[in-house]
């Protein structure tokens, strides 16, 4: 129901050509709001399932020939991401109330993406996961190509080819798992319980490599990240918000949902490689972001940095040694928290950069200055978003990063070098704040119109949620912690 409500609404919007633009926009808002309400209802009724199990499970035979079924369920890893997805799509719907470019088609496309994203996080079957994974790429391709600016065709094509190639690697890995499992199956809980390829390090390593490459492209980690900046720069701001907020999480979610539970031995064997990739992504992403002059590109690179923390934490989870299980569990909890946190904060920041383009048609920092005078509300909200993103306590980013660092350093002291990442992100965000907002009002900042209600009501709630769960993390942590303990148990087998 939660999955298909947006899809049905989207199809209806697409099928009714005579529907007014205004109706289409408000229908989109209403549908996403109802869907979010359903998700909240789900959350309220949620009880932590037993380790390895799923809550609200549903299973219908789908392709019985290859033992693939329409299998859905939630646990502590997926529930926060589902809720975050609902929130981000609602924010995008509200933000897009001011859109004048083919709003009906846009609403239909985003409702389609909404369904696909929810489906991916709920999927408990590899084929189902893969189908949603690929459909998300297709949907985002049309978003960038259809509503983008700059050179959208090329960026969209690059995004599509790169991530699609990644998804093919993923498919190869999935098939490897299927072939190795006895009996052959694509069912996730069954595969996690069976751990195929347990005694075959070479085959396990190859299958893991295929899956890792597929997920690393989507996440993205260095060196598979170069599709991200052009895709973000040329995407419409709602597209960027969904791309960064939701689609990138599909990669990191794959690590904790598929790679770690199903290939624990291979994961342990290759954990150092993953840790190194994570640390490099953290530092490299931050430093390259520091050098950017284009706000949107800069935020895109900070995504590489923030995803790097997650990769680092899940890598550390594989460094099984002695009595570090508690520390590694903390790191994984931090990683899941970071997925939610990055979604909320970065979506807000991308929506705000959309305001820059909407008003003055440029993302170049040096073309602005002193925005705080004509647009005090924009300045305040942007400053809050920047501080949230650089990991200031009282926002979710701190809770996530604190746990990642604490857990990682305790389990593998050399990872402390990644802490430098938060210093560089602080530097780059403060430089951006200063360049855009402070000083004399100049360049394109002259005559800049402040935030409009739709913009305040889309960005504001995202940041308020980040603040809420940054001050009161327990409700979210109570859901995540059992799940991350389970993941650590599974990896430790």
């Amino acid at each position, binding site marked *: 129901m939660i999955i298909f409500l947006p899809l049905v609404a989207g199809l209806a919007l697409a099928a009714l050509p005579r529907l007014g633009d205004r109706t289409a926009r408000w229908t989109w808002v209403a549908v996403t709001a109802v869907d979010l309400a359903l998700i909240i209802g789900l959350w309220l009724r949620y009880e932590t399932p037993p380790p390895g199990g799923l809550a609200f499970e549903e299973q219908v035979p789908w392709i019985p020939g290859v033992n693939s079924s329409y299998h859905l369920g939630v646990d502590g890893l997926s529930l926060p991401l589902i809720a975050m997805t609902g929130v981000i799509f609602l924010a995008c719907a509200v933000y897009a109330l001011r859109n004048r470019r083919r709003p009906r088609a846009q609403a239909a496309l985003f409702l389609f993406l909404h369904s696909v994203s929810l489906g991916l996080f709920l999927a408990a079957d590899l084929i189902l996961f893969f189908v949603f994974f690929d459909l998300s790429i297709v949907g985002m391709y049309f978003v960038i190509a259809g509503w983008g600016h700059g050179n959208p065709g090329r960026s969209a094509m690059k995004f599509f080819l790169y991530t699609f190639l990644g998804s093919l690697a993923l498919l190869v890995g999935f098939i490897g798992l299927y072939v190795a499992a006895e009996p052959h199956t694509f069912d996730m809980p069954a595969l996690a319980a069976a751990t195929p390829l347990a005694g075959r390090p070479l085959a396990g390593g190859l299958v893991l490599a295929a899956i890792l490459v597929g997920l690393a492209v989507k996440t993205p980690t260095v060196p598979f990240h170069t599709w991200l900046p052009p895709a973000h720069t040329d995407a419409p701001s709602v597209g960027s918000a969904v791309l960064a907020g939701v689609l990138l999480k599909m990669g990191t979610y794959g690590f904790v949902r598929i790679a770690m539970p199903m290939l624990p031995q291979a994961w342990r064997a290759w954990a150092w490689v993953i840790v190194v990739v994570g640390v490099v992504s953290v530092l490299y992403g931050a430093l390259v972001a520091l050098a950017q002059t284009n706000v949107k590109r800069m935020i895109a690179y900070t995504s590489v940095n923030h995803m790097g923390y997650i990769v680092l934490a899940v890598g550390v989870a594989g460094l099984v040694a002695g009595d570090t299980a508690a520390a590694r569990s*903390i790191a994984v909890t931090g990683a899941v928290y970071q997925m939610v946190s990055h979604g909320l904060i970065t979506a807000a920041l991308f929506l705000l950069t959309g305001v820059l383009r909407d008003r003055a048609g440029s993302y170049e920092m040096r073309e602005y200055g002193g925005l705080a005078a004509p647009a005090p509300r924009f300045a305040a909200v942007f400053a809050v978003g920047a501080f949230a993103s650089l990991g200031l306590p009282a926002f979710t980013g701190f809770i996530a990063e604190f746990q990642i660092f604490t857990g990682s350093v305790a389990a593998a002291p050399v990872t402390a070098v990644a802490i430098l990442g938060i210093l560089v992100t602080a530097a780059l965000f403060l430089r951006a704040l200063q360049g855009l907002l402070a000083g004399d009002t100049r360049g394109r900042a002259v005559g800049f119109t402040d935030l409009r209600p739709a913009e305040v009501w889309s960005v504001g709630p995202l940041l308020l949620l980040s603040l809420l769960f940054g001050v009161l993390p327990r409700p979210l942590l109570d859901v995540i912690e059992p799940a991350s303990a389970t993941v650590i148990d599974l990896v430790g087998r």
Partner: protein
Amino acid sequence: MNEFAQVCLWLLVLLPAGVGAVLAAVARADRVAVPVSASTAAVMVGLSAVVAAARPAVAVPFVAGTDVALTVDGLAALILPMLTVVTLLVLLAATGEIRTSTARFHGLMLVFAAAVAATATAATLPTLLMAWEIMGAASYALIGFQWRDDDRVSAGLTAFLTTRAADLGLYLAAGAALAGGAGLALADLPASSPGWRNVITAGILVAALGKAAQLPFSFWLSRAMAGPSTVSALLHSAAMVAMGGYLLLRVEPLLAASGWAGPVTIGLGAATALLLSAVALAQRDLKQLLAASTAAQLGFVVMAAGAATVTGGAAHLVAHAATKALLFLAAGVWLTALGTKRLTGLRGVAKRWRLVGWSATIGALALAGIAPLSLWATKDAVLTAVAEQSPWLYAAGLVASALSAAYAAKILVVIWLRVPADRRAEVEAHFDEEERGTRRVTVRQQAPLLPLAVGAACAGLLALPPLVAAVSRAVGEPGGAHTPAWELVVSAAIALVVLLIVVVRRRVPEPRWALRWLGLPAAASALVVRPTLRCANALARFDDRIVDRGVTGAARAALAVSRRAGGFDDRVVDRAVERGAAGTLRVAQRAGRADDRWLDAAVEHLAATVRRLGRLARRPQTGQLHQYYLQAVVVLVLGVVLLVALG
């Protein structure tokens, strides 16, 4: 009572945080900002009195299996009332300096005050880290309060980044504490496993030195002087910088347990006290002088932590807070009125506004260590403990004391200088160089100076009998901190002599090497900032030119390969197929021709032969008997011949 005190402790943090956040967020709150913030600060004073008396502790579960925990111990009970009182007085005084965006200013100040209260009472590392970083962020926003000046904003940036660089130590310490096995509570840290304990100690030490503007981090405090004077009066005297020293006092058992940290801490504190005093002596700007002096005075607190005298350190912290807040407020009053903070522009200013002048004089005399004012006794309480560790460091401390007498005297000489009428224009040329001065001083600006002057004069009692015994008991050092009378006399004499020399000679040596803060800002820029930016730019170019081009190159190569394959397909495979077809056709044609020419001919030839043979075979059948007989004879003869031949 206990529950009430716990509620008070929560409120002490949450009330200013909430009110401050609302004030800062609501743009139209300017009109009510001052009364709201002043009454909040007044409530905080009351709350701090309650919690200081009742010493409650509160905790709620937080991340990583640890709590957000606030505890009021003896040390916090001593510091909290000082913090809240200074906050209230500074907020009142700020009404003269801050006349626009008052809601934002007071909101940020309250958020800052909440963070300081949380820092002072934090009982676990996550709590401390949260409060610590929010404090830093609030200081960024407050230093860059006048955001139209790029320079002030970048001063805030320098302050935030420098202190955050040091804060990374706390993140590291948190990880090490988790690995160390004793938990993340500050009180449990000394029980960690020895290896990890060293990491924890180092991390906390670095973070504290950064906040306290000790060497080598001191330079950020110089840039921070671009902020409003009232901000400096709170952040750079009583609260943020002081919290660096306070944290070291707080974890003194940890420093002691590690073995090496105590001497290192004393050494760094002594070096800062000595060198930054020289820097203060060289300054030509009142706020710069006060900033360097703050770092130097905090050096004494840091020494106290290293020498394990929490009593002396805490007393010095409180006395310095009152003294320095007073002096910064006075500097702010003059800056608002005259538009300058250059010492040459402030000549004779004490005579123009007597109350401010005399208050500042008390502050400067206290800073000089003149008996019986506050810093005289507190400094000696620290130095006594240092003397037990090393006479050399004690001597360094005495030299630093003498230097502080000198720079305090420099202030006194300037503000009381009689300016002859013919040189007045030279002084007035500096007016309004920083901002447009109002040429007047309001009652609300002056009133807070009086209680601070009383504090600057009397806070020394904390380090003298009989109060010192109570303070020692409160901070858990029963029987500690007894300063011998001769030390008190010696230091008082040194301070007095230096002061008199300066006042009589009316000038001090101004070491030129210290004017630019020992070259620390330039060094940080050359050694850290510029290389980092260069590295970032190089990596960005690498990313665009190599990584991305690698990918697009791979794509292009794939395209080229497919084009080649297409060509190959057209040229070779297809042509081969076509040639094959043509060949087949030719073969078929040839086969057809061969078929016509050979096979068919052969068949027809055969048929003709058969026909001929048929004709031949018809010939013997003549119907005449004699011919048949003849034929039979021939056959028989042939048969006989055959039989004979074969037989």
